[in-house]
C-alpha cells in the first residue's frame, strides 16, 4: 500500500435509514384537532391563574406551571401579527410558491397560531390585517383542516 493517499477516489455512503415516526398528539391537542375536524371550530384553553388563553392548547401553563382546564372557543376572526413570503419551492413546502406564512392571533386568544394566508397576490399581506379561516373540504384532524386564512 502506497503511503501517499493523494488522488484516492473518495468513497461515499448513502443512508438507507428511514425512521417512520408517529407522534401521539395527546388528549389536549386531540381535543383541539377533533373539534376542528368535526365541528370546524377553533378551541383554546385558558390558564386559571394568569388568564392566558392558549392556541394551540397547552395542558400546563408554562408560566404558572398549573394545569389548564378551562376550554373556550376563539375566533374565527383573527389578526395577522407577522408574516413572510416564501418564494423558493422546497420539498418541505407542499403548496406552489409564493406561499405566505403568517402568525394569526385569533380573537379571544393570547397567543398566535402559525399558519398560512390565502391571497391571490402576496404583496397584499400586511401585519394587522383582519382574517378568517377557510376550512378544508377533506379534514383529517391536523391544523391543515384550516386550509389557510383569507381577508375578512
Amino acid at each position: 500500500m502506497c503511503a501517499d493517499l493523494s488522488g484516492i477516489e473518495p468513497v461515499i455512503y448513502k443512508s438507507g435509514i428511514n425512521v417512520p415516526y408517529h407522534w401521539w398528539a395527546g388528549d389536549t391537542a386531540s381535543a383541539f384537532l377533533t373539534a376542528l375536524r368535526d365541528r370546524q371550530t377553533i378551541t383554546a384553553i385558558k390558564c386559571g391563574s394568569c388568564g392566558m388563553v392558549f392556541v394551540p392548547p397547552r395542558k400546563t401553563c408554562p408560566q404558572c406551571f398549573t394545569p389548564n382546564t378551562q376550554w373556550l372557543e376563539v375566533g374565527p376572526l383573527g389578526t395577522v401579527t407577522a408574516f413572510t413570503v416564501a418564494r423558493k419551492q422546497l420539498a418541505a413546502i407542499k403548496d406552489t410558491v409564493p406561499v405566505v406564512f403568517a402568525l394569526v392571533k385569533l380573537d379571544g386568544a393570547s397567543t398566535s397560531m402559525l399558519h398560512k394566508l390565502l391571497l391571490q397576490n402576496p404583496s397584499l399581506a400586511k401585519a394587522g390585517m383582519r382574517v378568517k379561516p377557510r376550512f378544508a373540504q377533506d379534514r383529517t384532524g391536523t391544523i391543515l383542516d384550516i386550509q389557510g386564512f383569507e381577508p375578512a
Partner: protein
Amino acid sequence: MAKRVAVVGTGQTFHKSHRPDVNGQELINEAVQRALEDADLTLKDIDAIVIGNMDHFEGINYVDCWSVDGSGGTMKPIIKLTTGGTTGSTLAIGGYHITASGLFDKVLVIGWEKNSESDTTGAITTAFDPVWDRLVFAGAIAALAAEGMAYMTEFGITDRDAARVSVRDRKHACNNPHAQLRKEITIEDVLASPMLSDPVHLLDVCPRTDGACAVIMASEDVAEKICPNPAWIWGTANRHTYTYVGDFKLGEIDSMKYAAAELWKKCGIREPRKEIDVIELYQPYSFAGIIWIEAMGIIPRGKGSEYIWSGATDMGGELPINPSGGVIACNPIGATGLIRCAEACGQIRGKADQRQVPDVKLAVSTGFGGCYWTDILLYGKKKPS
C-alpha cells in the same frame, strides 16, 4: 472545591408501552410535578434544569427548548444531555457535576422517552458507524446476543441460566407500581418465548416504554434543609471503550470493569459485595445480569450464574439487584438510567415502599449505552467526608 450533592426528591410516571393520552411535554410534566411534590419544592425553587432523551427516538432535536411546558424550563437555565442508552445515567452524572459546581443550589434533572413514537431499531442503528458497521448490523439486540454467546461459550452456561435473571427482575417488578411489565414469568416462559437473536429470547430483553423520570439534586448548602434524609452522591465514573463493533471484548465488559474499579477506589470501597446493600443495574437483557456483576467486581469471573441461582440477588438475599424490576420490566430509554438513580436513592431514603430493601446505607446505579459504554454512581445515607 466541589460541593457535596444529594438527591432530595424524585418522581416518575407510571410507565406504559404507549401513552396516547399525552404528548412528550405532558409526559415530562407528570414526572416533574411528582419530584417537586416529593421534595416539597415549587418550580420557583429550581435554579437550573438538565434534560435528555435519545437522539432520533422522537425526531425532535431541540428537546431542551421544546419541552419547557413540561419541564418548567421557561426562562430558566436549561441544557440537554444525550448519550444514547446511557442518557439517563449521564443526566445523573451531569446534574451532579452542575450542582457540585456551586453555581446552582437546586437542579432538576429529567430523563424521558416516548419509545412508542419511532422505529427503535432504525433509531438505534444511527448510533453505529455508517461505513463499517451499519451495512451488516442493526439495532441493539445483535451486539448483546454476541456478548451472551461469547460468555456461554467460555463458561458453559445456558440460556436457562440467563432466564433465571429475567425471572428475578419480572418478579421484583410486581412490587413496583411504576414498572411497565408487572406479571411474573417462569424459566419455561422465557425459554419458550420467540428467539430474537441466538441465544436471546424475547423475554430475555427489555421492552419499549413511554415514561419519564425527574430527580432533584441539591448542594450541601441546602440539601438537609429540603430533605432530612437525602441520598448523598458519593461518586461517579464512566468509560467508553469502542468505536466499531469489532473493538470490544466479548463476554466481559471492560467499560464496566474499569468504571467500577475507579468508583470503588475513589469512594474507599474494598469489598463491594459486602459493603453495598442494593444495586439498580441498567441491564437490558438477562445475560448482562450475570456477566456485568462479574465485571463490577461483585463476584469472580465465571461465578455470576451460580451467584444468581443462589438467590443472593433476589429480594431478601445478600445483595438484592433491581428491586424495581429493572430494565427488563421497563425501558423508557432516555429515562432508564435516571430511573436507576431515582430507585437507588429511594432505597437510601427509605421511600421504596413495597420494593424497599431494609436498612440501605450504600446503593449503586448504573447506565449502559449501545456501544458498550458504562456509567456508574454510588450513593450513601451518610454525607461523604
